[in-house]
């Protein structure tokens, strides 16, 4: 009986720990490239595992994982297809056959050719089954410059939203706003989406934590934008990131220290590829600068990033909006966790980590974004509790400062502070 290999084994550290160690070793063997990316992205230092891939034994492991991933991805596509049909079926059951005409063109699948040569399948327009691209799923290098759009695709694109006399972007219910960014944007995006929804304007929030432009092997924003905008009705893109980007970059297998000319050139090209691509698709870009940060390393870094963002978004189609004055209302040069309003009340705007925002802070930033828009209905109130009506609804009030320039800590900021407090 004891010789039977299928007999129950008694637990012992001597048998179990080697099993666990072997399991871990196998996983590392198949995923050492992803581990390297993870390490770079979280620890900002080299683990050196990717070098192992040069040995055929290690390359085999990565190959197996990639094969499995490919097969999972193919199944995912089939499921997405079935899902789209089920959605259509549900609409037909509820609405009758005319549902097909009323539907969003979301079922359409457009394939975009980038100049990097990769075929990028677009996601559904609502982006709800946009699979977060893991290291293996990233489709195109961030270094891809703006793809030259196919004229036939561009012909179907909605026109560039016009500007109002006060510089605001005039939105109609035909517009759709794309929200892009890291965990800072994740906090703000729901507020913006709700405020837009009140004016019947659709939005698509793709924000994802831990992302940025410094580690495209982890998440590639230029590629994501390039496969999202075509085939969807996006007319405005709002970008808010930078919290994860104040670190050294891996360029050509070597670490490039943060802020060097080479670093800045590469980073700028990534900003540029997002902005230029959006503009080529008749999409206006609002790029929010990063606010002052509670950690010195990040704080000094985002000042550099902000300069790069600003330099690439000043052509009139794209605009740069600073957030430092808003969130450091009492001293734009310094990080402030709490700001004192003009009436002497203290509002906490930042969370303990020195990076993210409290709900009040999020609402203020959302209102700052909403101030860039002229909405179709006059009576849209930014997110605020009904108990205390805001003194000023930025969307309906005349704009006290020219919009494309950073709002000075004046009446505009005060209005945002007040509405934030009342929410």
């Amino acid at each position, binding site marked *: 009986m004891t010789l039977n290999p299928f007999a*129950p084994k008694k637990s012992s550290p001597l048998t179990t720990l080697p099993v666990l160690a072997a399991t871990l070793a196998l996983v590392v063997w198949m995923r050492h490239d992803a581990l390297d990316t993870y390490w770079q992205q979280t620890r900002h230092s080299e683990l050196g595992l990717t070098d192992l891939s040069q040995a055929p034994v290690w390359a085999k492991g990565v190959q197996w*994982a990639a094969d499995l991933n490919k097969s999972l991805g193919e199944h995912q596509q089939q499921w997405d297809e079935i899902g789209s049909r089920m959605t259509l079926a549900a609409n037909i059951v509820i609405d009758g056959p005319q549902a097909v005409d009323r539907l969003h063109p979301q079922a359409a699948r457009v394939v975009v050719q980038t100049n990097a040569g990769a075929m990028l399948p677009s996601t559904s327009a609502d982006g*709800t089954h946009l699979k977060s691209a893991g290291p293996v799923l990233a489709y195109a290098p961030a270094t891809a410059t703006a793809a030259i759009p196919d004229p036939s695709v561009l012909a179907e694109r909605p026109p560039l939203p016009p500007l109002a006399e006060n510089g605001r972007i005039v939105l109609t219910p035909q517009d759709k706003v794309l929200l892009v960014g890291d965990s800072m944007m994740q906090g703000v995006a729901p507020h913006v989406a709700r405020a837009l929804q009140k004016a019947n304007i659709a939005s698509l929030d793709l924000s994802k934590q831990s992302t940025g432009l410094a580690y495209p092997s982890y998440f590639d924003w230029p590629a994501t934008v390039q496969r999202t905008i075509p085939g969807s009705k996006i007319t405005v893109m709002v970008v808010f990131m930078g919290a994860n980007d104040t670190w050294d970059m891996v360029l050509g297998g070597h670490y490039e220290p943060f802020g060097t000319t080479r670093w800045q050139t590469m980073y700028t090209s990534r900003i540029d590829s997002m902005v230029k691509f959006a503009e080529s698709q008749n999409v206006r870009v609002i790029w929010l600068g990063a606010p002052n940060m509670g950690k010195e390393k990040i704080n000094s870094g985002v000042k550099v990033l902000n300069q790069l963002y600003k330099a690439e978004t000043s052509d009139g189609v794209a605009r740069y909006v600073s957030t430092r004055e808003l969130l450091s209302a009492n001293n734009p040069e310094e990080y402030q966790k709490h700001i004192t309003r003009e009436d002497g009340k203290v509002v906490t705007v930042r969370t*303990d980590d020195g990076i993210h925002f409290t709900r009040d802070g999020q609402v203020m930033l959302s209102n700052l974004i909403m101030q860039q828009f002229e909405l179709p209905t006059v009576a849209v109130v930014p997110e605020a509790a009904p108990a205390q009506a805001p003194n000023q609804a930025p969307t309906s009030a005349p704009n006290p400062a020219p919009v494309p320039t950073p709002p000075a800590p004046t009446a505009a900021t005060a209005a945002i502070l007040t509405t934030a407090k009342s929410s």
Partner: protein
Amino acid sequence: MSYLSPEFAVFFLAFLVIYWSLGRWNTAQKIVLLIASYGLYAGLDWVFGAILAIYSVCVIAALALMALLPSIRKWIAGLAITASVLNLAVFKYFDFFRETIQNAADSAGFDWALPALDILLPVGISFYTFQSIAYIVAVARGEREPAKLLDSALYLAFFPTLLSGPICRPNVLLAQIESTERRQFLEADRAIWLILSALVKKVWLASWLADTWVKPLFANPDAYQGLELLAGMYAFAVQIYLDFSGYSDLVIGMALLLGYKLPDNFDYPYLAQSLRDFWRRWHISLSTWIRDYIYIPLGGSRHGWGRTQLTLLTSMVISGIWHGASLKYIIWGAMHGFGVVAQNIIEKFRGKPVRGVFAGVVTFHLVCVAWVFFRADGWHEAVNYLSGFARFNAPLQMNVIGAFGLLIVFFIFTWFSRNFSETAVRVLERMPLLVKPVVLAAIVLAVNLLGPSGVPAFLYYSY
């Protein structure tokens, strides 16, 4: 370091090797466990480690004093518990009360500006506070004497349960820590199965549900239709279950690998046939803690039927407040409280307990509606979300048929889950040693590829 991160996997394996190589020396094992616990905790933020150390010293001192002065041990216990609760309350609620007092002062016409203090909530403070209260009460009631210094410190810092429970009683965890017998390696294959189950539940399923169904709908409910919002509500109910029960599976599995057996924290709660039944199955270590240290001390069922209902309601509201200083959590607790009271009224008039499939469906829906308050940003948003159920004015954007289908699959799977788990453990036990790592690695790899990139955070870390 998250328990789901690659660093932790390497750390834990290395730790297990050291820990079991000390298998002959019971005390040495406990010392390395204590060092590892503090190392991991202080690794999150050294202030957390310092707060835990100071708190542990205070609790241990109070316990020693109780042993020294038995005539006033109940007084000391009362003081210690009050101080513990105050300590927890300051960390958890200071900002909330600052704003409440500020608003009250504003409306009363006082021109105060209360300072905002930078108070960082140490992860897991609720859980170790609850464990310490259970310990103090046990000593005060004479159920046990204070343990040795090392054992008490390890009981409060034991890293598998430190961050989010399960809340272990002295007679469960402390008794095992105190045992002088050589520690046994317990049911390794069950531990491995629990860890795999945690990965599947959390890294793959809960993350997928959150990204696909929960976040977009709760972020902007007005953009969706009634059926989609209904599906989103179910999705969150399943997500929070998978998230939290996955976490519990993970820590129970980790503890088993260390030779400790922790109590179950979940018992298929959505199969409950009544709300009372639900609370016997959901976050069991918290609900029994609330029963023993809030409900019974408040009077329990000792003062007649009417008072009992009031006590039940109060306990549920306190449970709500514990989750966060926000009206939405109070509403969540009150909904459960009123639900249980309603169930008791029905049972009183019918003369028999509420049960059956229909009761189960009603219970599940009550729980789901209450979860909307739990998940939404605030109670206004929750009401707005629920009011959207009546909206049918635009085409559906999401695959609701698929979602409802998956919900049915979830229930069918849950129904057979217990047998499935036992079978899986048997299969693992019989699997040849050389094959096992390949199978395990394949499952881990698949979960890793199916889940989102990065390390997901657990919902309950913030309580």
